[in-house]
C-alpha cells in the first residue's frame, strides 16, 4: 500500500503545470476579487481530480497488467486510490485554508465564518461526489472511454439539478433561500453533515469499485 502511495506521489512531481495554473488562479481570485469561498472550492475540487491523473498514468501503455503482477492485490489497488483521493482532497483543503487565512491577514480583510464554512462544506461534498462517481467509471471503462461516460454522468447530474430547481421555482419554493438556511444557519452541523454524507458516498462507491476491479480482465 505504501509503495503504491509513493508511486502516486511521484506521479504528481510531473504535474508542475497543473500546480502552477492552480497557484495563478488562486492569486487572481484572492487579490482581484477577494472571493475566498470560490478559491476554497476551486482548489479542493481540482485536487480531487488528481487521482484520475494517477490512474491514467497507471494505465499508460497497458501498465495495469504489470502493476497487478507486483505484490498488489486488486482490492489493495482500489483501496489505495480512495486513500490517495481523501489525502489529496484534505491536503488541498488544508493548504488552501492556510493560504486564504494568510492572504486575508495580508489584505487586512476579515474572514467571515459565514463565507468560509459553507464553501468548505460544499467543497468536501462536491469533491467526494467527483471521486465517488469518477473512480468506478474510470475502473470500469479505462482512461479513454471513461471520459465519454463521465461527460454523460455529470451532464445528466447537472440537467437533473437544473430540473429540480426549475420545478421548485414553479412550485413557488425559493431554492437559494432554502440552501442558505441550511448552510449559514447551522455552520458546524453543515460541515459535519458534509463530511458524513461525503464519507457514506465514498464508502458505497468504494464497494462498487472493488466489485468492478475483481471482475475486470487485463
Amino acid at each position, binding site marked *: 500500500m505504501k509503495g503504491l502511495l509513493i*508511486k502516486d506521489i511521484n*506521479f504528481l512531481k*510531473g504535474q508542475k503545470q497543473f500546480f502552477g495554473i492552480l497557484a495563478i488562479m488562486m492569486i487572481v481570485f484572492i487579490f482581484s476579487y477577494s472571493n475566498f469561498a470560490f478559491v476554497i472550492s476551486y482548489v479542493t475540487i481540482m485536487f480531487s481530480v488528481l487521482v484520475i491523473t494517477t490512474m491514467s498514468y497507471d494505465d499508460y501503455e497497458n*501498465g495495469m497488467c504489470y502493476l497487478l*503482477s507486483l*505484490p498488489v492485490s486488486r482490492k489493495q489497488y482500489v483501496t489505495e486510490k480512495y486513500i490517495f483521493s481523501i489525502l489529496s482532497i484534505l491536503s488541498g483543503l488544508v493548504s488552501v485554508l492556510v493560504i486564504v487565512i494568510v492572504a486575508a491577514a495580508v489584505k487586512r480583510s476579515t474572514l467571515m465564518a459565514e463565507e468560509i464554512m459553507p464553501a468548505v462544506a460544499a467543497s468536501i461534498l462536491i469533491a467526494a461526489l467527483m471521486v465517488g462517481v469518477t473512480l468506478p467509471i474510470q475502473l470500469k471503462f479505462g482512461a479513454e472511454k471513461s471520459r465519454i461516460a463521465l461527460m454523460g454522468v455529470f451532464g445528466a447530474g447537472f440537467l437533473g439539478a437544473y430540473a429540480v430547481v426549475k420545478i421548485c421555482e414553479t412550485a413557488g419554493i425559493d431554492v437559494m433561500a432554502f440552501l442558505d438556511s441550511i448552510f449559514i444557519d447551522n455552520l458546524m452541523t453543515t460541515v459535519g453533515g458534509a463530511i458524513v454524507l461525503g464519507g457514506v458516498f465514498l464508502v458505497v462507491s468504494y464497494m462498487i469499485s472493488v466489485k468492478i476491479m475483481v471482475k475486470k480482465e*487485463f
Partner: protein
Amino acid sequence: MLKLENVKKQYKGFELNCSLEVPEGCVTGLIGKNGAGKSTTFKAMLGLIHTDGGQVSLFGKPVRELGAKDKERIGVVLADSGFSGYLTVKDIISMMEHLYPHFHKEDFRKKCESFELPLNKKIKDFSTGMKRKLQVLAAMSHEAELLILDEPTAGLDVLARDELLGLLREYMETEGRSVLISSHISGDLEGFCDDIYMIDKGSIVLHEETDVLLSDYALLKMSDEQYHALDKSYVLRHKKEDFGYSCLTNEKQFYKENYPELVIEKGNIDELIMMMVRGEE
C-alpha cells in the same frame, strides 16, 4: 511450482487450451509464433484474466487465491506491459523497497547503472530494449523464487541479450529457483532451458526436454520415392518441398541406422517450430 491444467480461455477467433508445468529448480521455455497464445497463457497464470475452465496453481495455491504476499515470491516480465512511463528508475526504487521486503536496493541501482539505464529519466523516453532490461533487473531484484518472463530479450541487441542471459544463469545458481521464459529467439532457449513447450493456436503441440530435442529430433530430407518407401512410425510432421519431402522426427537414430541414404539435418529449434507449425501430421 507453477502448474496449468487444461486452462481454457475463449476469445473471438481464438481458444486457449493449455497444460504446462514448471517444476522447482527448472528452467522451462515456451515457444510459439506471434498470436499462438503465449501472452494469454502468461496472463492466465498471473490471474490477470478469468479463465473459462481448468486450474492454474502457483506455489500449490489456486491463482485466484494468490495474495500480495505470494506475489512477492515471483518476478515478472511482460511482453506488452511494464512500469508506467511517467516514473523514473529512482521512483521505481522508492516504490519497490516498500513493496518487496527483500528488495536489494543498492544492487538494483548498480545493475541499472551498469546496464546504462539513467536513474532520473522518465521511462516513456526509454528505448524498447532499455524498458526490457529494467523489467528483467526488477524481476531479479527481490529474491523471487519463480521468474515468469514473457519475451525478456525482445528488442535487445546481441550484447545486452547475452549479459541478461548471464544474469539469469547467475540467478539460477541459488537452489530451489525456477524460471518460465518465452522467447521467439530460439538461441536464448536452447542454451538455457531444461525443457521446452511449444504452443500453437492456443494448444501445446510439443513438450520435450531440451537435450532430447537437440539430440533425438532431426529433419529428414528425401525424394518423393524415398518418402513413399519410408517407415513413418516416428515422423511427427511432413511437408512437401521442391525436392520431395522434409519430415520431422523424434527418433533420429532410427532413420540414421535404417535409411543411411537420407539427408539427416540436426534440427535447431527454429526449424522445429517451422515444421511443427507448417508441416502436416
